């Protein structure tokens, strides 16, 4: 009974727990419930992955309505892989959330943080699992609305402006996706993605299909912060509470890259997207732009959170670049990067959460010499930072290694240069933080280590797990690389 309804439970459990947090109205209880729910959710996604590895794919008819009419949940290896990433990050972030969030959100609103957090998780999981185009739009809106709310929870008044900016961009993006779904419905007469892709093969290549394609790409591009459409991202990550930045940086953009992959490979088919529409050249341009622009902007920033946000933009460039190569290895590199970067960037933002917990600042200037007063935090930050640069024995190296290999295989030597050059830029921007923290003299400033708050043990535990994952997948790569290879093989032969 339970095992056959796992796909529905994956979405329903966090959805039901979200209003429960409001009813509980107690921040400790709400936190316990959130940890419990995310753990259950992770358990379900592990069970789903296990089943998918044996059965290849699961379809689940929501409410018993059979596929083309009812809403279908569709799970294949790619879905299970993404579910695992999102849920694992949700568990680790929610464990550490309590100590950090109590300092960064007004105390009477803390329980609302857990509500919006769970709603956001529902939306993201729903976007991944659904096999219905309109349901996709609804879940995108659930994820987006809750993320606007969660960003605006911060004590900093600029978080309000950042949230509204994200809201305006995000609504335009979602509306574009809605237009695209409408046009596709007009051509095919169905909303089920699998059904739609079969009918698109026989449909004439009219301008309606092309228009739908363009609208969808731009809509998802805004949501995933692909280079020229990234304007909402730096502000949202900078001004929201650190835990929120950690969760959003690890999940939201990756989920929308996933939507892009699904759309290109499962709905339109990559032959259409890349060979007929020559979409890969546009992606290559966006990727190179993102990599260079993100890295150059990151060098200029003083706030560590803003620096990491720009670094995220450049990392999204890597994911897009892998896609644009149109090879199995390129797609796999992109998937490996989604996995690794999700853990690296969340780890880095959690380290910033610890820094803000102690020092109440994330400015590089103000942090000079702080590594002496809190060495452990900065060691953990350093390891994740090295991973962003791509130093061997960290997971960041693995994703860059596969991307370079894929670029050489596809014959694009130019991209190897760009990747190496952007690694040099990464050395500079991570180096600036390290230099300030380790080698500059300690300053007597207003920002002193606040020992009275006590050590945030849970935050440290989840930070340590992120660092461990980071190193583990830099040494032992069979788990994620093999799965990514299998997925890309499935998608390309589809």
């Amino acid at each position, binding site marked *: 009974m339970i095992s056959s309804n796992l796909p529905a439970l994956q979405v329903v459990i966090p959805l039901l727990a979200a209003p429960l947090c409001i009813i509980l109205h107690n921040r400790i209880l709400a936190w316990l419930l959130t940890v419990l729910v995310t753990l259950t959710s992770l358990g379900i996604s592990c069970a789903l992955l296990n089943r998918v590895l044996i059965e290849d794919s699961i379809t689940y008819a929501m409410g018993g309505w059979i596929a083309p009419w009812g809403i279908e949940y569709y799970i294949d290896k790619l879905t299970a892989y993404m579910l695992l990433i999102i849920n694992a990050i949700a568990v680790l972030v929610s464990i550490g959330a309590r100590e950090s969030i109590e300092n960064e959100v007004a105390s009477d609103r803390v329980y609302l943080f857990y509500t919006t957090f769970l709603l956001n998780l529902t939306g993201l999981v729903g976007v991944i699992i659904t096999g219905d185009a309109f349901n996709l739009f*609804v879940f995108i809106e659930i994820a987006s609305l809750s993320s*606007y709310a969660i960003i*605006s929870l911060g004590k900093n*008044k600029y978080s*309000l*402006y950042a949230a509204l900016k994200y*809201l*305006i961009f995000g*609504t335009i993006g979602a509306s574009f996706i809605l237009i695209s779904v*409408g046009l596709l419905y007009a051509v095919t007469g169905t909303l089920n993605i699998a059904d739609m892709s079969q009918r698109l093969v026989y449909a004439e290549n009219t301008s309606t299909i092309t228009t739908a394609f363009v609208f969808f790409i731009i809509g998802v591009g805004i949501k995933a912060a692909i280079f020229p459409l990234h304007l909402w991202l730096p502000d949202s990550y900078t001004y929201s509470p650190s835990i929120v930045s950690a969760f959003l940086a690890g999940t939201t953009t990756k989920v929308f890259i996933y939507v892009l992959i699904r759309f290109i490979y499962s709905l339109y088919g990559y032959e259409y997207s890349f060979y007929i529409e020559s979409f890969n050249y546009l992606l290559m341009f966006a990727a190179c732009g993102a990599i260079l622009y993100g890295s150059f902007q990151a060098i200029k920033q003083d706030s560590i959170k803003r620096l990491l946000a720009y670094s995220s933009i450049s990392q999204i460039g890597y994911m897009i670049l892998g896609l644009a190569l149109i090879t199995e290895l390129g797609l796999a590199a992109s998937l490996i990067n989604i996995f690794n970067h999700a853990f690296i960037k969340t780890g880095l933002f959690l380290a910033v959460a610890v820094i803000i917990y102690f020092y109440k600042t994330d400015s590089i200037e103000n942090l000079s010499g702080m590594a002496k007063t809190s060495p452990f935090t900065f060691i953990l930050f350093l390891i994740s930072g090295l991973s962003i640069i791509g130093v061997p024995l960290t997971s960041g190296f693995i994703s860059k290694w596969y991307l370079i290999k894929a670029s050489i295989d596809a014959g694009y030597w130019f991209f190897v240069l760009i990747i190496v050059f952007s690694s040099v830029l990464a050395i500079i921007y991570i180096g600036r933080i390290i230099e300030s923290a380790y080698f500059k003299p300690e300053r007597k400033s207003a920002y002193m280590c606040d020992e009275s708050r006590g050590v945030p043990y849970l935050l440290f535990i989840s930070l340590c797990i992120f660092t461990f994952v980071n190193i583990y997948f830099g040494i032992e790569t069979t788990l994620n690389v093999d799965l990514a290879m299998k997925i890309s093989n499935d998608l390309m032969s589809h």
Partner: protein
Amino acid sequence: MEILSSFNYWAVIVLMMIGFYIIIANNNLLKKIIGINIFQTSIFIMFISMGKVIDGTAPILNEVNTLYSSPLPHVLILTAIVVGISTTALALAIIIRIYKAFGTIEDNIIKKKMK
């Protein structure tokens, strides 16, 4: 005649552009939200227009009529309207808090204050 036969779609394009222009060009945050609403309304009209079958009636099963308009886009748009309203409500709530925090809802003044 070409224009008149697809009048709905021309209305959609015009409304969409008006909405989009307001979002981009207007300084007032509240008016930007109005722009978003116009933009979304144009999409709703597009969906509803698509569902219409010429000479089709309301989709009620009886013996006289055999040609029906598609009811599905209407259902979808009901959901989309709800989503649109929640977005507007959230945006208005945030704008009220922005006004309390900054004392203004003009985009350029807030940007100046942020620097």
